Structures are given as C-alpha cells and as structure tokens.
C-alpha cells in the first residue's frame, strides 16, 4: 500500500493523534515539574546548592577564593577577613574545576569587581578528563538566567542546547537534595559555613605518607589552558589582583607535574604571583593536618590559611592594593 493511502487510513490517523497527545502530556509534565524544581532550587537557604547560587548572584566579597574541593576545604574565610581586613568568600566546590571557577568569575564580574582573587590550582589540573566536562552540570540550573556562562556550558556536549529544552534536565539527580533542602531539618544546618563558603573537614588521616611518581606525559586539555589564560587576562583588565596557589598534599612526588610546570610558566609570563605548596615539607611532617592524602582538615586549614596570608601580606602586589585602597573592614 502506498504511503499516502496509508496515512489516509483512519487507524494511522488515530495512532498519530495518540502519539501527539503523548508528546503533549510529556511536555506539560516536564514544564510543570521542572518549574516546581526550579522554584525550590532557588529557595534553598543553606547547603551546596545555596552556596553555588550565592557565589554567582550574591557575594560582594573583596577577596574571592576559587577552586575545587581543595579550595573549599583549605581557605578559612574568617581568618582572611580578620587578618587582611577584607570581606572574603570561598566559592570552592567539590569536583568542579576551572570550567566552574571561570563561570563564577564571569558572573561575579557582571556584578562587581573584587580586589583579590585566589585561584587554588591542582596537580594534574590540565589533564584531559571527560568527567570534568560532565561536571559542568553544576551550572545547568543557571543557564537561563546567566548568559555569561553559556560558552562554558556548551563545552559540556554539542547536544546541551537541546537537552536544556527540558525544564527538568538541569535538575537531574537533584530531586532529593532539593526536597530535603526545603525541610526544617535542612534549615537548621550550620549557616555560618554558608556565609563563608569554607567547609572544614574533621577527619584525621591515619596512613603514612605515600610516595608517588608524577605521570610524566599526559594529554593536556587546551580548553582548560585557554580558559586559564582568559581568566588571567580578564583579571588584569578589571584591575583584580590574582594569586595562583597549589595546596599542600600528603604525598611525596618524584619529578614534576606537567600542569604545575605549565601554570608556573603562564603565571610567570603574566607576572602573576604563583606559590606551590604541594612539596612543602612542613606539611609533610604533620599527618594530623590532613583529612586524607590531598585534603587538609580544619587544623591544617587554619595553619595553611595563615601561611598563605603571611605570603600575601609580604607580596609586593598586596602592598600596592593596601596603599591604593586604605583598607577598612567590610564584613557582611
């Protein structure tokens, strides 16, 4: 039977009509449920999702810490505020890399200009990893309202634009986090941390220091390198003083890491102060400062924060800022 004749058949017409009804039901449900999720997502008053929203939309801190879990757990904002006399917020978020940091920075730039930005950089940060791209998902809920992060989100996959047609998609896997976040149990959580962004770890690492060889050669992700370069450039243009810091680790490395060497070169070329604490022997001697091989616990973070502040205070860049601004305490 020819196709045209087939379509005229009533059965096919009913079939197509029912298929259309199904699609309509799907779109309506997606819109309704997605809208509910969006509403409650942005109503969060504490917790991880709240802190991300706060970093993008609300913070006006003069001193901004950016990075992944190492940033999040290593830099105690309160100490920075006290000693530097600048309002401080820690935007670090676990498992999120330069893609996330750069996006936060873009949104911040649209609202105000911090005086100092501290980027916590990791060993192997530039290594090609598809997981890093997948985690750009943290930014999906902000796609609609933050056009400045579109370029990063598009890096996630070529289909992202189409997936975002679904209102539910940005909130994939967040259903229970959002739901729990609206209950009273959640509202009673420590809000101090959310005001600072800094999350202390309490565990104490029990194992001995590990000895590892740096993977000499791995593929470097040019996207990440270029984003870092843009980041540096934009800081300069906006008059923001950038510091790049590598946190201590409870690992003795043989050889040098490709990413660390590369970022050192870039920083030196652009005259950005760069401090590498990954081989700092002070920390190697104190297991009790660490929660695990790559993260400091609260004790360690306090010591490290103070150490970093000492370094910053002695840097020529800081003296210039201090003189230019006649700093006074501005804590929210």
């Amino acid at each position: 039977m020819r196709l045209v004749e087939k379509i005229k058949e009533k059965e096919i017409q009913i079939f197509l009509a029912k298929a259309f009804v199904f699609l309509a039901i799907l779109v309506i449900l997606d819109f309704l449920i997605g809208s509910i999720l969006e509403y409650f997502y942005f109503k969060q008053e504490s917790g991880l999702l709240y802190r991300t929203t706060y970093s993008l939309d609300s913070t006006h801190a003069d001193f901004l810490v950016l990075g992944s879990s190492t940033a999040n757990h290593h830099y105690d904002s309160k100490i920075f505020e006290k000693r530097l006399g600048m309002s401080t917020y820690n935007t670090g978020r676990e498992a999120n890399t330069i893609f996330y940091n750069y996006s936060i920075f873009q949104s911040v730039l649209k609202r105000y200009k911090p005086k100092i930005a501290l980027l916590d950089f990791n060993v192997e940060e530039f290594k090609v990893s598809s997981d890093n791209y997948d985690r750009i998902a943290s930014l999906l809920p902000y796609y609609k309202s933050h056009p400045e992060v579109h370029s990063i989100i598009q890096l996630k996959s070529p289909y992202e634009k189409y997936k975002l047609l679904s209102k539910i998609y940005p909130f994939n896997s967040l259903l229970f986090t959002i739901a729990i976040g609206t209950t009273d149990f959640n509202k009673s959580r420590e809000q101090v941390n959310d005001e600072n962004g800094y999350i202390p770890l309490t565990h104490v690492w029990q194992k001995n220091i590990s000895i590892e060889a740096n993977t000499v050669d791995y593929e470097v992700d040019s996207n990440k390198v270029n984003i870092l370069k843009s980041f540096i450039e934009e800081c300069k243009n906006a008059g923001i003083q950038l510091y790049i810091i590598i946190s201590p680790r409870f690992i003795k490395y043989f050889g040098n890491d490709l990413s660390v060497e590369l970022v050192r070169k870039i920083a030196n070329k652009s005259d950005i102060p760069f401090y590498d604490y990954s081989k700092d022997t002070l920390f190697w001697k104190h297991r009790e400062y660490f929660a695990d091989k790559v993260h400091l616990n609260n004790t360690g973070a306090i010591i490290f924060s103070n150490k970093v502040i000492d370094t910053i205070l002695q840097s020529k860049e800081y003296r210039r800022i201090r003189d230019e601004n006649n700093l006074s305490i501005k804590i929210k």
Partner: protein
Amino acid sequence: MLFNSIIYFLFLGSSLLLYYIIPTKFRNYFLLIISGLFYMYVKVEYIFLILFIISINYLIGIKIEKAHDKKWQIFFLYLSVFVNVGILIFFKYWNFLLKNFFDFLGLIHLNNTDNIPLIAEVVLPIGLSYYIFQTIGYMIDIHRGSIKAEKNFAQFSLFTLFFPKLLVGPIERANHFLPQIKRNIHFDKQNITEGAKRIAWGLFKKLVVADRISIYHSTVIASSESQSGSTLLFASVLYTFQVYADFSGYTDIALGTAKMFGFDLMENFKRPLLAKNVSDFWRRWHISLSSWVNDYIFNPIVLKNRDWGIWGVFYGLIISFVVIGIWHGAAWNYVLFGLLQAFAIMYEFITRKTRKRISKKIHPVIYDQASVLLTFLFVTFSLIIFQSGTLSEAINIIKGIFLNHGDLFYDKPSTLLFMLIGCGIMLIVDIQAEFGRFKFSLFSNKNWIVQQVSYALLLIYILLAGVFDGGQFIYFSF
C-alpha cells in the same frame, strides 16, 4: 553505539521512518544495510570479520545438509565448530591461555624466557561471543536435522547481523528467527507502541537503577578495606540488582527495538530475582545463553553418558557451567563462578527429596519466601566472585562482610533514596508480573490515557533520576 545514547535514538528514529516508507520487499535489505552500518559505527573493521564468519558458515551449513555420507556430515560440522570456536578463542582467550600455559611451565621450571608471544592488544569485537554461539547452534541444528540450511544469503546474513541483537544478544535460534525474516513485515501500530514501551522500561532499568547503583558500588569496592561489613554487604546486594537491571535493561531496549521493526526476539530474563532455587534461577537468567548451553552441551553430554546415572548429570553440570562462566571472559574467577553454580545445582539434586519433605511441614508462603531469599543470597555471593578481578579480592570482600565493624556508608541521603526507590519500582513491577497480585495496573491499564500518563511519568522520572553522564560521583576517601 550505546543503547542509551542520543545518537542511537536519532539512528533508531530515522531508520524506522525509512523502513516503513520503503516498499515491503526491500525491507530486509534495508535492515541488512543499517545493521552493517551500525556495526561499522562501533568499529569499521568489524564488518570484515562478521562477513567472513557469515560467508564461511553459510557455505558449510549448505555442505552439511548436502553431504550424503554421515562421515562428511560430521566432518563439516567439526570444521564449522573448529573455525567458529577458533575465532572466539583467538580473540577472547588467547592471551589468557598463553599466560597460564607459561605460568604452568614456570611452575615446573620449564620456562626460561620472559618472551610470551602475547598478541598485543587483541581487542575482542563486541558481540562476537553472541553471534558465534548463535552460528554454532545453527550448524548443530542442521546436523541434527531439526532445521534446513538457509540458502538465501541475504536472509542468512540478516540472521546474524540484525543490529538489535548484535551487541548484547539474545542468542537466537534458527527455527525461531529465520521464519520471521521470511515474512513480509507490515506496519502495525501495536509493534510500535509495544516496542516503545519496552524501550522505556529498558532505559529506566539502565539509567535509573543500574548506572546509579554502579556509582555507589564501585566507590565502595575501590575502598573495600576501609568499608564496614554492613556497607560491603549492602553494596553487594545492590550489585545483584545492578547487574540484573543493566543486562535486562539493555536487553529490553534490544527487544523493544526489534519489536518496532516487527520482530520478536527471544526473552532473555524472566524475573530471575524471584527464583526459588538455583536451577530455577538459571531458567530465568540470561535464558538465551543457558538454554543454548542446555540444548547443545548439557543434554548431549548427559544423554551420551546416561549409563553413568547421576554422575553423568554432575559431569554435564560442571562442563556446562564452566562454559557459561568463561563465556563471560577469560579469567579464573569466571571459572570459579561457573563451578559454584554447578555445585549448587548438584546440591539441589541430591537434597531434592529432603527439601520436599521440609516444604510440606512449613507454611508454603514462608517456605517460598525463604527459598527466594536464600537463592538471592547465593546469587549475590556468586556475583561477588564474578565481579572481583582476582580471587584474593573476592575473599577480602567476603571476609570484610563478616569482620569489618562500622556503620553503613553513604555520602548523602539522596544517594540511598535514588537507589532504593529505583530497586523498589523494579521489584514491584516484577512481582506484579510474576504473581499478578495487584488488580489495578498503571502500565497495562485499559484506559489509554492512564497508560499514556503513566509512561509519561516514567520518562519524566528517568529525566529526574537517570544517570546521563560521568558527572555523578560519590566522594569517599576514608
């Protein structure tokens, strides 16, 4: 091309459209072409291998049938088995066999060089195990006289190449699938809707249940020395659900796809987690493989050695389940896995009368539920060995379950909720299919609006709870 990828659905949609537009008599050729393209998308070179296998077996199949002499019949049968098994061994087991052979030589001090001629990077073509077994079955069927050799080369090629079953089976039978290839396929809206529903369930099982549990399970296993016994047990139990959801979900997508093109492939799973004993389990799990082994290995061995009585059965069981074990891969833990199944069934044979006696003394519901639970625990235990890379790893996990103290590990309540709700839904659907307990049904409701809303909600839940990329993670360091 992964079944849960966007490109697969683009491929599926466009293929279906073209398939029903082109004239009926060209449809098989169309299927042949897109199946070939599908396989080449995975890796271009694969098409040459599969065409070689198809051609050789096509010719030998006809030769077996035409041979007048019984001697020649057997010769050609052995030739085809030799070629097929040879190819399988080359790609799958060569390195394993060589390494173990040289280890053995080393043990008796005959090995004095370190140069093992390993074939570096022999990558196993995806699907090879499935279609080699299918082809061997075809050959044996011709030899037994239960089917006729397929003279139509295009149809015989489609029998092997048909893309829905190409990568993960089911292992089809000639008498089940070849007749379907010979029909004229007409558009039937039932096929489209039934197929689409099946695919939806497959996606649910794979994305919402299997891939979600996988994140938790792999994190726990990677740090198993630091995990508590309760965590290890919990992860192992979840792993059983994971493997079931993963494999049966993928199979659902395969069967649903085939259905949309008008084909009925063999059922591969029949609510295996509700099995009452290990023999029953293997009649419900990976049915196309276990029935293949039953028809082409177990029965012949047992009947040939029927004078041995129960020892013939035991011998058949061991051979059969070792084959099933190593079918999964070239490693000793798969052999052990197979042996475990064989011993369990041997135990069931021996204790048959005793267990029947016990069952009569206990309330049937309690006895049945206890049976299901015990069988489930045995399967979970077997899977610990199945998924461990080495025997010592498996032993450590089992030791850990009994000896390690501590609380249940989870990074946040949301993780537990996603996993448990996913398993719960899957279990409820299976229980309903098995026992038909609930009179009201959402997904088979007579009212088409109720059905549509239910399936829409299913897709919505997949959007909400499915794992779509590698971005999900659980942080565990201590």
